[in-house]
């Protein structure tokens, strides 16, 4: 019973995580919800987990729950990767702004010099 409550709390945490993720990565949010609901179902109806585990050749219902956790971990890993990509996009925008501002400053100072360069057009 203690294990069931503990797993339930963790799976509810996954559901919360799914909700916060949904806006940025809908597919990750959806997969997290499916995996967490799947986990909750098997935690509270272990007989079904055992039956399904036998059917798919896993052996024990508890292994099926473990596999569900592995699946959830992989989904979260994928989400972390996507978040890193988003961060990189922000860094890119920032770096681009700095680079273009520097180039504009350089062009402005060049054209301010007597006989200096012309502004760029492409």
């Amino acid at each position, binding site marked *: 019973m203690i294990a069931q409550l503990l797993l339930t709390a963790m799976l509810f945490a996954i559901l919360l995580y799914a909700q916060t993720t949904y806006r940025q*990565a809908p597919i990750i949010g959806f997969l997290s919800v499916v995996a967490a609901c799947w986990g909750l179902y098997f935690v509270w109806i272990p007989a079904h987990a055992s039956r399904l585990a036998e059917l798919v050749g896993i052996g024990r219902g508890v292994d099926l729950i473990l596999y569900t956790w592995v699946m959830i971990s992989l989904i979260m890993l994928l989400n972390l*990767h*996507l978040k890193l990509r988003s961060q990189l996009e922000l860094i*890119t925008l920032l*770096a681009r702004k700095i*680079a273009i501002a*520097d*180039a504009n400053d350089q062009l402005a100072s060049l054209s301010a010099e007597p006989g200096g360069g012309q502004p760029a*057009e492409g």
Partner: protein
Amino acid sequence: MAAYNEAPVIAGVVADTKAAADRVVVVDDGSSDATADSAAAAGAIVIRHPVNLGQGAALQTAIDFALAHGADVIVTFDADGQHRASDIAGLVEALARDGADFALGSRFLGGTINLPPNRRLLLRAATWFTRATTGLSITDSHNGLRAMTRRGASRIHLRQNRMAHASEILHQIAASGLKYVETPVTIQYTAYSLRKGQTLVDAILIILDLFARRLHR
């Protein structure tokens, strides 16, 4: 043009392209060698990324800069010396002649020099994949030599920083609904450019990048 550690060749490439274009803009993508100084000495306007971000990011920086400075036509050009500056006129003419917003260089309509058979196979596979995913009727999907009008360039917003930008730009061209044409160009492979070129592993990573991009907003 986007350049990363191209010091051995960039001055020659800039000198060639200067003869064919009003302005040459080089985005030095965080090079650790003298790329930026060589390009500037050869007469290019140099924009320096503070860190290495990738060719796609550098091209978008160049496009944003050119648009901000009132460019009417923008030509993207590889910095490794495999493109010919003499092809630029053909691309720009094609825009005007056909009323298109994008003129895409095609080595398979034009010519290749020293193209290894395995690279040819990889390029054919990439073209097939791009045709299937974008619906564009093109013969060369990963050619960095292309021209675009101001209107076309303003529809390009590359978010693929690395090599997948070549596919992303075609997706955005298809999504824009603007007219595109293909123009024959010649690509000359050298030992230098081949060393910097893409491999089968890169092609797989490009597909994964394109897939990952679709998973988040």
